[in-house]
């Protein structure tokens, strides 16, 4: 893995989106920006993948969306976490934590 790889780890994009939206309703660019800022630029989200993932999550019933005004008076599509989405986020977080700590243990054992 090269140092400048900013791809989101495979299979974690959904969890990152759900986590980001769980704080407050947000539009697509806002989500991308938040993921980038919070990860300190480690992850960058490509808009095509992000918008596709948002559609998928909405159809899965984990997000709802509506067009609203942004703070700088533009119209944007805002995504809100649903009750089912909250549950899904908990599941994914638990799964991720379990796997990440397992990897960490393995790496420690190697070292």
């Amino acid at each position, binding site marked *: 893995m090269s140092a400048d790889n900013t791809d989101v780890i495979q299979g974690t994009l959904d969890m990152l989106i759900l986590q980001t939206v769980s704080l407050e309703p947000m*539009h*697509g*660019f*806002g989500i*991308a*920006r938040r993921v980038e800022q919070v990860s300190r630029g480690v992850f*960058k989200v*490509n*808009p*095509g*993948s992000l*918008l*596709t993932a948002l*559609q*998928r999550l*909405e*159809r*899965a*019933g984990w997000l709802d969306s509506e067009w609203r005004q*942004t703070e*700088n008076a*533009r*119209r*944007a*599509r805002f995504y809100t976490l649903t009750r*089912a989405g909250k549950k899904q986020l908990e599941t994914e977080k638990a799964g991720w934590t379990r796997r990440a700590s397992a990897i960490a243990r393995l790496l420690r054992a190697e070292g």
Partner: protein
Amino acid sequence: MSFWRQLTFGLRSLARRKARDRDVADEVEQYFQNAAAERMARGLTPEEARRAARAEMGDAAAARDQARVYGWENTVSALFSDLRFAARQLTRHPAFTAAAVLTLALGIGANTAIFTVVESVLLAPLPYRDSGSILVLNTRWTDSGHTAPRVTGPDGADLRNQSHSFAAMSLYSGGNEGVELRNHSVYTIAAGVDENFARVFSLKPIAGRLFVDGEAHHAALVSEMFARDNFGGAQAAVGQTIHIEGEALAIVGVLPDAFDFPNHAQVWEAAPLSPESKSRTAFNYKAVARLRTGVALATAQAEVNGISRRLANAYPAENHGKRLMLEPLQEAITGNARPTLLLLWATAGLILLIACVNVTHLELVRSLERQREIAIRKALGSSRWQVMQPVLLESILIAMLGGAAGVLLAFPVIRVLVAMAPPGLPRASEIHLNVQVLAFTLGIAIATALAASLLPALRAAKVDPAEALKHNTARGISRQGAAALRDALVIAEVTAAFVLALGAGLLLHTMGNLMTRSMGYETTRMLVADADAPAHSAEDESRVVRQFNELFIDLAALPGVEHVAGIMGLPTGSYGSNGYYQIRGGLPPDPRHAASANFSVSSPGYFQTMGIPLQRGRDFSAEDTFTSPFVAVISESLARQSFGGADPVGKQIQCGLDSDQWMTVIGVAGDVRQNSPAEAPGPTLYMPMTQHPFYANQIHIVLRTRVAPLTLMNAVQRNILAVNPLIALHFTTMDTMVNRSMSSERFRAALLSCFAAVGLLLAMLGVYGTMAYSVAQRTFEIGLRVAFGAHRGAILRGVLGHAAKLACCGVAAGLLLGLAAARLVASMLVDVRPMDPISVAAAACLLLFTALAAAFVPGWRATRVDPMIALRME
């Protein structure tokens, strides 16, 4: 929940395609604007901000495309647009489309129609409750292997009392009867059934009630139709009295119209549970039974076998070698129709095969035409599937169109089939198109489409672009394989058509044999009246015989009538009897096969009226009365069977028809075919009406006329009703009766001929198509030959020779296939061998002629090729 959202979101975006696209575009647009706005907030100029955003996030259009293709509905709509493209392609080639759709419609229509009949008659369950567990009882003689769908009264009763496998078992008997109402008589089908009959069929009357055993000979059930026709309604019929054979029966209940077992019965007379016939050699009953729930047919049969063995031990004289066999009612009812229907199904299958080959051929020609297009697409990097997909889609479209047209075609064909069906075809009234049939049609349509397009599609996928682009079919440079494949298809087609034509030829030849076969009696100018005179007692019966004898004299005096006689047991007629007989003074009897014969009861003058030659002795006369010595006339084959070469006149004969008196043989008459022209002439024993009055009240009156027989109908009817207005009458002619006795043979021959005609037409189209295509392809080459001085005759000969060669190959293959298939029809042939040389030659000539005729037009066109134009083409 999520599935529901998937569905609704997908459908919404499918329905409002543009709105969805705009939505996605708006969101992407807004995303990039936000990104730019953020950068401008950091102090970049709008132009710099946009450029920076694009450098980081890529092109907005690419993001839009990526987001837009999400969702299952996009696959669907891609398929729709491919189908739209295929449809446009088809409309651009109307000749190809029309030919393929019509060909498929013929093949699928024929199959749908035949399958409708097969499904309704053979496959659909009978319309009785839990009909699968209803069985009939047959008697089987283990030494001869003969099986009869009848049982004797005591055997049936013993089985019913000793077995445990059945929920109910019923004995019944019956046939056509005159039913006497208060003021007139009607002729209908009545059955005598016991109390258990209603239990076997789970019958529920729509009015009144069922009868109980104590009401035997006093109660009856009638059908809804009978009640409506004669009493005005079901309720009105209950409590009315009808008479059958002299017994007064109270109608206690009315059964729904849907029920007409056995044999379209309208009246069910109560018969006692304990059978009246006590003889174990008189097969007077039929039996039906309902299996107890959970009992398997094999288990029940094992139990019945045990009981059969016990009976054989208890009554060795009568029951030796006799075994009772169970058979599902559905098989018993439809068994006779099975071979005919399966034959028709097989021929319909051949038609479909020919249609399929034709469409394959059309597709192949089309795929050759677009070979260059396919090569270009492959050269540009299309995958195998992408090249095959348009071909497959087109043929599925064609199959759908052809299937729809086929179903439309099937409606009138089914109506014609039902109208043509022989009266013996069981369940004819139940024949209709239904969901199963439509599913079957859809199935064969798709299977046909795939079969017909697979070969061309695979060839298309295999095309090597470099090779294909080099070839130029219009210059006569084409690949060898394609022509060989087309030839093989034509041969296959000719083979199938030849088999059909051969089958039709065999059945037509049989039909011709039957039509010209001598029945042993005259059939033209014969008026026949079914006369059923009610008789309630022995005195009544004698009175009826006297009345009939006077009537014959009156009728003979009518202008236009030559001879008149009465008979019970008229050939092809509805009454009749048969059974064993014994003789004295002839050949020793065969201990294993008791001699049997048809029994007929006739009036004096019967042989003269029917034109049956009296070879020895004399006819019955007015002097043979009930009190004079009993006499009989025997047929030639009975004489041969039991008396060998000796003169039977004066010998003694006895049968169990109604008395065991010994009769003196007074004459020998010529043989007749009793039931149909397909049957061999058999032994018949004739007895005078005066000596067997019990069998003389249900007779056929036969009149030999000088004029068209039916013109005398009114006069004859007036005369008969003047003598006894209670006689139930039905008129027909001998020709009609004999004709009707051949209806199964005619039905088969007519249908197979129609199929063969359709097959020939399709094969002709196939040959024409191939020849026309190859001539068109070779225009350049032919032009070149003509330019070098080739004779036009030689060119025509070349085209015709090619067609003849293909047809000969097809005929040869068809002969091999025919040899195998002829066994299917062997049992349906009369005086015709399965490889009848006349039929084989006729079918071969027909096919050759058809192929040459089909090739002639393209051949002639080839001779018209102008070298100047041909060589300058392109």
